[in-house]
C-alpha cells in the first residue's frame, strides 16, 4: 500500500509550488491512475514519489514505512519505476535489460548471481516475452519495449510499481494489451500499481481508482464512473464533453 500525504514541491530558486499538498492512498493489488492535463504536475508527483526529486513538505509511505531518508538501494526495493520506452545507447539483449532490475540486490563489486537470473527468467515468463530474450532491445517494437520494462520492474520485486504514461507511444492495440497486462500483474502478484495516463476513457476502463490533478492540486479521487463527469472534464481540460453509458461502461466523447 502506498500513502502520499500532503506533498508539496517546488523547483530550486522558484517560489511557486508545483505540487500544492497532494494526498492519496493506493491499495495493494489494485490499479490507481493519476489523470491530468499536460503541466498539471503528474510527472512531478511521480518523481517525488519515486524519490528522484525531493519534496519539501509532506510524507510518502510504503506499507507504513516512510521513504524520505532511504538510500537509492532501499528505495528501489520498495518502488519499481517503468519509464516511457526509450532507446539505450547500446543494443543490450532483452534479457540483459530485464536483469538490470536486480541492480539493488547486487553488491557494488559483484555481478548478478543465480537467484538474480532466476528472478529475471520468471519476470520474462510472467509478462510472456520469453521468446524475445536474446533479441536486442533496440530491435523490438515500442509495445514490446514497454513489456520488457514491465518485466524489469517485476524482477525488481518491489511492492509498489510506478508507470509513467505506459501507453503514450503505442498504437491502439498495444495500448489495450499493455493495460490488460498491467492489470493482470497487479492482481496476480498483489502489487500496488500507480500509473499516469492521458486518456480519461482508458483510465476509466482499466483503473480501480482514479485521481485527477490539475495545477498541482488534487481535484477528485474515486471510482472512474463516479468522478469522471462532464463537469469535471470541463473544469480540468476546458473542453465540452458528453458522457454516455455503453454496456455498463462510461465513455466520454468530445462535443464537436
Amino acid at each position, binding site marked *: 500500500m502506498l500513502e502520499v500525504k500532503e506533498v508539496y514541491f517546488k523547483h530550486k530558486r522558484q517560489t511557486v509550488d508545483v505540487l500544492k499538498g497532494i494526498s492519496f492512498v493506493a491499495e495493494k493489488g489494485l490499479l490507481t491512475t493519476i489523470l491530468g492535463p499536460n503541466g498539471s504536475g503528474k510527472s512531478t508527483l511521480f518523481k517525488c514519489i519515486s524519490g528522484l526529486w525531493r519534496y519539501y513538505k509532506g510524507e510518502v509511505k510504503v506499507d507504513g514505512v516512510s521513504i524520505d531518508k532511504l538510500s537509492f538501494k532501499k528505495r*528501489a526495493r520498495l518502488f519499481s519505476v517503468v519509464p516511457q520506452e526509450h532507446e539505450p545507447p547500446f543494443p543490450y539483449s532483452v534479457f540483459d535489460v530485464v536483469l538490470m532490475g536486480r541492480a539493488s540486490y547486487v553488491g557494488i*563489486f559483484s555481478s548478478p548471481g543465480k537467484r538474480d537470473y532466476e528472478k529475471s527468467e520468471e519476470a520474462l515468463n510472467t509478462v510472456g516475452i520469453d521468446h524475445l530474450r536474446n533479441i536486442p532491445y533496440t530491435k523490438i517494437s515500442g509495445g514490446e519495449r514497454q513489456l520488457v520494462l514491465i518485466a524489469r520492474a517485476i524482477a525488481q520485486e518491489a511492492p509498489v510499481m510506478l508507470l509513467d504514461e505506459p501507453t503514450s507511444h503505442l498504437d491502439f492495440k498495444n495500448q489495450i494489451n499493455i493495460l490488460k497486462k498491467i492489470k493482470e500483474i497487479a492482481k496476480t502478484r498483489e502489487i500496488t500499481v500507480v500509473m499516469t495516463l492521458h486518456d480519461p476513457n482508458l483510465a476509466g476502463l482499466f483503473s480501480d481508482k482514479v485521481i485527477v490533478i490539475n495545477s498541482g492540486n488534487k481535484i477528485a479521487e474515486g471510482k472512474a464512473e463516479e468522478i469522471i463527469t462532464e463537469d469535471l472534464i470541463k473544469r480540468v481540460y476546458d473542453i465540452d464533453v458528453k458522457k454516455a453509458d455503453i454496456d455498463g461502461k462510461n465513455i466520454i466523447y468530445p462535443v464537436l
Partner: protein
Amino acid sequence: MKGIKVLIILISPLIVGWISLFLGAYGITPWMVLKILLNETLHIFDLGDIPEKVIVIDIRLPRVILAGIVGACLSGAGVTLQGIFRNPLVDPFILGISAGAAFGCAITIGFLSSVPIQFMAFIFGITAVVIAYTVARAQGEVSRLPLILSGVIVSAFFTALVSIVKFLVDPHKLQSIVYWLMGSFSLADWKAVKISLLGVIFGLLPIFLMRWRLNVISMGEEETKALGVNVSRDRLLFIGFSTLAVAIATSLCGIIGWVGLMVPHLVRMLTGPDHKTLVPLSFAAGASFMILADTLSRTLTSFDIPVGIITALTGAPFFIYLMKRGGKEAWGK
C-alpha cells in the same frame, strides 16, 4: 559460436605476444623463443649464455608485456568511459585525460623530478576529465556532442600547457619530453612492467569487479537511480579507476590515442554489448592490439617508429567510419 569468439579473444594476447617475441631485427626461431621461455620459468634444460636469451628475456619480453598491459589499461578505460557517459564515441584521449596526464608528466620531467610522475599524471588526468564533464553537463544528462567538444577543448588547453613546459625546459630534457610524448615502448624494461602492474591492480581490477554496473549506468541517470544504484558515487569511482589506469600508462609510454575508442567497438561488434563479457574482452583485445601495433612499429622499418603514430593512423579513419555508419543516431539527442 559466441563461446569460441570469447575464448579466441581471451587467449589472443598470448599468441600475439609469442609471435612478437620472435619478430625483430635479430631473427630468432619461434621454437627457440619457446625454449627460452621454458628455460626461464621451469628450468627444464640449460641453454647456457646465448645472445638470444638476453634479447628475448631482457629486451623483447618486458616490451611485449608492457605493451599488453598499457593496451589493456587504455582499452579498459575506453570501455568504462563509453559506458558511464553513454557515449560510444569517447575514450581517454578524446576526453582529455591523456593530455592532462601528459601535462602532469611533462612538468614532472621538466621541473619536479622529486615528485612521483604517476601521481602528477593522475592529478592532472582527473582534473581534465572532471572539467570536460562539468562543462558538458548542462542539465541532468550529458548529451553526446557537447561532451566530445568539451573534451577537445580541454585537450587543447592541456596540450598548450605542455607546449609551455617544452618551451621553458632545458634542451636536454626537451628531447626526452618530445620523444616520450609521441608514444613509444622503446624504453621498456622490467621496472616499467612492475609500475604498470599498479594500473592493473588499482585500475583494471576494480573496473572488472564493478563491470556489470556499467550496463545499468548506461541506461541514464534517472533510470539508474530508480533501479537502486547510487549513480553519482559509482560514476566517480569509475572515472577514478579509469583515470588511474590511463595515468600510469601515459607516464610509462607517453600519449597513445584511439586504442580506447577502437578496441571496445570491435569487441562489441564481435560479442555484443553486455559489459559482463565486454569489459574483460576489451582488456584482452586491447592488449593484443597494442602488442600488434608495437610489433609493427619496431619491425616495419629499420627505425623504431613511435607506436602512437601507428594507432593514430588507424584510429582517425576508424572514428570517421563510426560517424558515417551511425549517422544521426551516433550523435544522439
